[in-house]
């Protein structure tokens, strides 16, 4: 038997696979395809204090081996989440982590405070890295001072597991990572999408309404892997690797680079068959390589050249 369990903050997860926020709804949409409790934990769509309808069309554009999106954090808002959505999450028996976002620091605090009183919610992931909103989002996550301020403010009102989701669109992600950890983050998740764009050469118009958007999918996997590697050497908290993961081999790569767990994102759009095959692949790899605990793989990069 291979022990696939990992620990993120105060959360013990049965395996290191999680769905990335925004690619999985509230976990209910995929129940008709498979038992979503196969995941180590569920991360819900970004939640904001007020409901948001999202950006105008077009919101998505395909790229080579990837996808640009500019959804704009469309979500039901805190009140509906508390009064309606929560009730639909009864079937989820694995830990539920809520991703939260806001335009101001006070909005983040208000949402975090409400969630802290809910026994069903085991953790929050703070989104300071969305590239598709005018206020908040990535504007917060590219500034180490604001990152520190936002994380420490939320830490004051939220005592369960607190994960901070980082953007790759910075000069030095290590600086932002240290700010978040010093301010009290239990774990970091990275990377959110990479800023990108596409243009229709016939009309000379951008393919997204917001001109630029967030690139996801296999196209960004090498970038994500390098950022995880970099952050793993900057901080001492668990890292959740995100970015273009589509196979069990990808998961192993992220663990070796320094991730404790991973989030599966855009793969949900093309393969709604669930994480079971990926988990089998990981187990087989471990057996073959005499690995008894998956945690043995974390940060196990060989021939590292630090000079």
């Amino acid at each position, binding site marked *: 038997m291979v022990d696939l369990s990992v620990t993120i903050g105060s959360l013990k997860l049965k395996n290191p696979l999680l769905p990335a926020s*925004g*690619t*999985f*709804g509230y976990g209910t*949409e*995929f129940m*008709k*395809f498979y038992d979503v409790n196969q995941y180590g934990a569920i991360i819900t*769509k970004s939640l904001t204090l007020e409901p948001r*309808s*999202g950006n*105008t*069309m*077009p*919101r*998505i*554009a*395909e*790229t*080579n*081996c*990837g*996808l640009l*999106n500019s*959804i704009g954090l*469309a979500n039901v808002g805190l009140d509906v989440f508390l009064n309606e959505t929560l009730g639909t999450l009864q079937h989820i028996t694995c830990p539920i982590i809520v991703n939260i976002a806001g335009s101001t620091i006070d909005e983040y605090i208000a949402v975090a405070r409400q969630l802290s009183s809910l026994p069903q919610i085991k953790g929050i992931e703070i989104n300071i890295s969305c590239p598709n909103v005018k206020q908040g989002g990535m504007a917060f996550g590219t500034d180490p001072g604001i990152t520190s301020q936002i994380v420490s403010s939320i830490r004051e009102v939220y005592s369960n597991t607190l994960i901070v989701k980082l953007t790759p669109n910075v000069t030095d992600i290590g600086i932002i990572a240290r700010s978040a950890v010093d301010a009290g983050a239990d774990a970091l998740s990275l990377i959110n999408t990479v800023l990108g764009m596409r243009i229709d050469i016939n009309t000379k118009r951008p393919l997204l309404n917001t001109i630029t958007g967030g690139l996801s*999918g*296999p196209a960004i996997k090498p970038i994500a892997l390098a950022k995880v590697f970099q952050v793993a050497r900057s901080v001492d908290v668990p890292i959740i690797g995100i970015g273009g993961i*589509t196979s069990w081999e990808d998961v192993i790569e992220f663990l070796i680079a320094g991730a404790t767990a991973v989030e599966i994102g*855009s793969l*949900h*759009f*093309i393969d*709604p*068959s669930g994480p079971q095959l990926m988990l089998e692949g990981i187990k087989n790899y471990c057996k073959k390589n005499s690995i008894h605990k998956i945690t043995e793989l974390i940060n196990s990069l060989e021939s590292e050249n630090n000079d």
Partner: protein
Amino acid sequence: MKTILLHKCLIIKNIPITNHIYKISFKSPDIALNSAPGQFLQLRITENLDPFLRRPFSISRVDKKRGIIDILYKVIGRGTELMTHFKNNDLIDVVGPLGNSFTIDDNFQEALIIAGGIGCAPVFYLIDELIRKDKNIKLIFGSKTRKQLIDFNEYGNKIDVLICTEDGSCGIKGLVTDIILKEIPDSFDSVQGFACGPNPMYKKIHDLFSASKSIPWQVSMESKMACGTGVCQGCAIKVKTNEYKLVCSQGPVFNLKDINFNG
């Protein structure tokens, strides 16, 4: 019983039926039995990840007895170009049936169907169902030219067909929307409109019918789509309440009067 939504289907035919438009047929007794007109399928184009996304296609027709599904596709980009290379006996990775379907109830006896170009794909399945329910059917189908016409002759006198082409190379010259007002019966209490085509066609129908004759229209909306299952929220369209609705999971069939064409 849980509906099966993931399928590997055996391709039995993949042929051009007119200029740039192909028909692909594959085996899937599950989809044939559990789908309804208006629903769509998400097809994986390649085993690898480029093109990355699946491609959504309306179910064009099902043969419930033989368990065969037809899809019509127009070659417009790399994904659909790659599809033309699918061969008989290849397996195709299909997710579906997805989305809602046309409502065919007892509130109408006359069905007026407007179809434009490749948008006509779901019309075959719709007509088959309407015939089964003994409705009177009038179809107005338009394309750019004669070369792009899709053949509805097999229905013989079971339906009343009117053809138009933009260049006048066959049937009436003009757009389908130029002639529909003339084709509405004077007494239209029990007429249900169905429209399948590009979104600008729906806007025209919307504008024409909000002014005078008002019959209810069910339309199959188009939108760029990623997941097809309601999680990515990429395929939203605006409705009259200024909210967004998702074409994939709250559609693709909408009541035309609910669509906000100014958003």
